[in-house]
């Protein structure tokens, strides 16, 4: 059984995307996967399933919470929501990401 988890960058990006998705509205795992897939094909290159470990990680860090609810087709489903701590983390991350992207952009433009 491979113990390697996806690289830190990818994993970090995925976590950020999940947080971003949940910042819009509470959502179940499938919904989150759909949303991320629509927005970015690459992040889920390893499969929709990789959303779930990310959800556990985020939850263990207190960034998201969950509760069981009823889905749009009347089935029991686990809905995830972002916590206050999660929002703070998302803002900080977004800020960082933007600064990083701007830096890369500047460097690329310069050469």
């Amino acid at each position, binding site marked *: 059984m491979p*113990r390697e988890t996806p690289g830190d960058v990818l994993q970090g990006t995925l976590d950020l995307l999940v947080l971003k998705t949940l910042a819009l509205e509470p959502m179940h*795992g499938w919904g989150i996967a759909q949303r991320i897939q629509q927005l970015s094909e690459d992040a889920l290159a390893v499969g929709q399933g990789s959303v779930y470990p990310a959800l556990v990680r985020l939850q263990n860090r*207190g960034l998201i919470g969950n509760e069981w609810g009823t889905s749009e087709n009347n089935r029991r489903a686990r809905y995830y929501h972002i916590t206050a701590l999660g929002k703070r983390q998302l803002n900080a991350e977004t800020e960082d990401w933007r600064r990083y992207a701007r830096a890369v952009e500047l460097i690329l433009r310069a050469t």
Partner: protein
Amino acid sequence: MRRDLRWHPRAIGAAIRGRLRALFARGAIEREIDEEIRFHLDMEIDKNIKAGMTHAAAHRAALVAFGGVERTTESHRDARGTRFVDETIADIRYAARTLARAPTFVVVSVFTLAVAIAIASAGFTATNAFLFRPLPVPHGDQLLAVFTSDFNGREQHGASSYADIVDFQRAADSVADLAGETRVMLAVRANENVTFTQGALVTSRYFQTLRIRPVLGRFPVVPDAPTIVLGHTLWRRAFLADSSIIGRRVQVNGQPFTVAAVAPPEFRGINREIAVEFWMDAALSPIVLRHDNMVRQRGYRSYRVIARLRGAQSIDALNARLSSVAGRLFRSYPDVWRDTTGAGRTARAMRELDAHTGSMPRTQLVLLVAGALAFGFGLLAIACTNLASMQMARAASRRREIATRLALGAGRGRLVRQLLAECSLIAVPGIVLGVILALMAAALVSRYRPIPLPSLDMNPDWTGLAFVAAALLITVLIFGLVPALQAVRADVLTDLKGGAQPGADGLRIGGVRGGLIVAQVASSVLFTALAGLIAFGLAHSASQGRDQARKVLVTRVNFLPAAGDDRQTESLANEILAGIHSIPGVEAASASASIPVRGARWSVYAETRSREGETKKRELDVVYVRPSYFDVVGIPLVRGRDFESRDIAAEARVAIVSKAMAGVLWPGEDALGKSMRLNDGASTAEVIGVVADPDGFVPATDRSYPGLVYLPQPIRREAEVMFQFRAPRGQAAIAARVAAQLRRYETRIVAPPAMTIDEYLDRALGPQRIIARASGVAAAFQVVLAIAGLSGLVAYVTALRRREIGIRTALGATRVSVLRLVLRQGVRLTAMGAAIGLALSGIVAEAIADTVSMTPAVVASGLLLAAAGFAVIGMIAMVLSARRALGVSPAAALRVD
């Protein structure tokens, strides 16, 4: 994510919650994941069907998009952060399954370990109580001890006299409470039961100083009436824990006393070495003891003194008072407080606990504790050895499994953890059981005091117990791990190919492995020999002179002060003996100071002159006897005459020697009429008779000579004498009649019911029997485990040499040569272990020979039998497990898988 909120309190809380849930709600979590993933897939399938796919295609596409359900669940588990715990649980499950296949081994190992721990920690508690804990009285740590030194100050921890204590009390009254205790042996009678036991004479304020509370009644304050305080053990034993005992009359040395109180069970006097069973005010002692030096003589220093400071007083203030009173006593009583040079005694107080450790006595208790510790740690060493050898044998047979797993990429650390789990499965239950046993034993001891332990605080010491358990756990794991690590060091390639190929230097059994087997065989032989020797010795001494011993009844008579002076006591003894003799069925009645077969033996220095005129001084075994002793014990008189009453009355200087002794003292001469100087000329004795040698007599030590010297036994007051009488038949009825007769003298003597010498010796040999039984059990353990170890070794060798055996068989090797190949190592190690075990047993046998009658022939045959017996059993075990080697088919062995 670089900006980190990881250490935010809420994040930490979530992390802990998540992991706890993962650990304790594993099942629920797995179900939830399943449901979540199923929901996800269903949603995806629905979506695909809506997009126009067939059901099957939709299903497949959903799975592909998901990216592997198993992998997701697995990484989900990883994300939960409980992999370590999961693996550990798996290890333990695996280990449990493996061990379940060897239940006997597990039971024996766990039990050995538990007993080892229980004994070791009991020894630890006792040592601790003896050396480092205050006496079991309220605020025992505040107790002081007061000592009177000798003149030159060399002995600081000297005892004090009653008169001095009274002066100390008066002088120190405003500063401290002070009291003393000295020991006496007295007979306490309740109804028909007479108990001759150790008690204490105490000064007034003894119980007040100690501040203990009685279980029943009230401690006497003023000795205005003859009262006695019973110890808890005496109350239970002699009075059957009768709660209406207070105010009841009992006879103490034949004098009426009233029971005032019953002391608490843990309190057995202020002496940690010897327990006392009752207390009475020393002022009452003239009633029961004729000589009053215990109270009146200032020079009779036998009291231990304790003190307790009042309120905020300091020990210095007490010492100031004590030295001023010592100065006054020095002036007033020059004969006992001052020596010829004018140097005087001093009196000083110090903490009781410090004083106690400062003057460590070499008592039996210390030996007992040391013995218990040694036995406990010995057992522990055995337990550890067994664990190690188990791991060794198992590791050997699992070399390929381990090699395979290593080759498949299992971490060595992971494998070690698994082997460790196996050790823990034995170590942890063993230790838990051991701690429980220790606690139960401690509870029993401190509540019921089943053994006459002195005042010791035997409550379990939790820190100590925890320390012992932890230290043991680590030791056991280390022992288990050494062979485990050896196994993991395995050479993957060689092992996968089918085992180590014995090279030019032959097959080497690793030092640790070989050492373990040798140690195990050695300890098996040692314990078997020990058990066998004692059993042999007991049987030997039982068979010797047993017929005679069954015909002789014995009772140990103590003469009390009321028996009168020496002359009166002597005639009382004669009167009692004549009375016993007159009972029909009693053929002869006599008395001796001891029973010379075993136990207490006196010796005397005798100087004799040989024919050549040279004098020689020897230490000889001696028995003091009264007339017709030889008739009673059935030893025929060979020459001369027996002692007569007038010899004793006239204190005649006569002796009787046994034949062997006559041969030693006057070789080739007639002993009759010869004389010897006894104890450096203190007296002389003329030989008036020669008797046959007693059956089964063994000299007390190697240095003594065979045979005995008999001297006449005058009965002095307060003596203890063995009354013996010959009654070949109807002994029970005769013993009852004797008891009835003796009761007539109850104010003057104390005598327990008579029993045959046979029974008497049986009781005297009780401790040896216990040792024999204990080492028998240990031997059984050891033999079982050693055999397991040896079979394991043979199995190991067989496993390693499987290919070689296959080739040899294919080339036509005989069964015998294959057996020789497989058994060589085991036989060599067994021989080494047996030799070491024999050497150790030889040393132990010498120690035993002091307590159990044993001739060198018995010792030698016992030892050889133990070794030979083990060798035979070991060989059978090895051959049995070697049969597998014989069954190796060349085709199977040579197949490379």
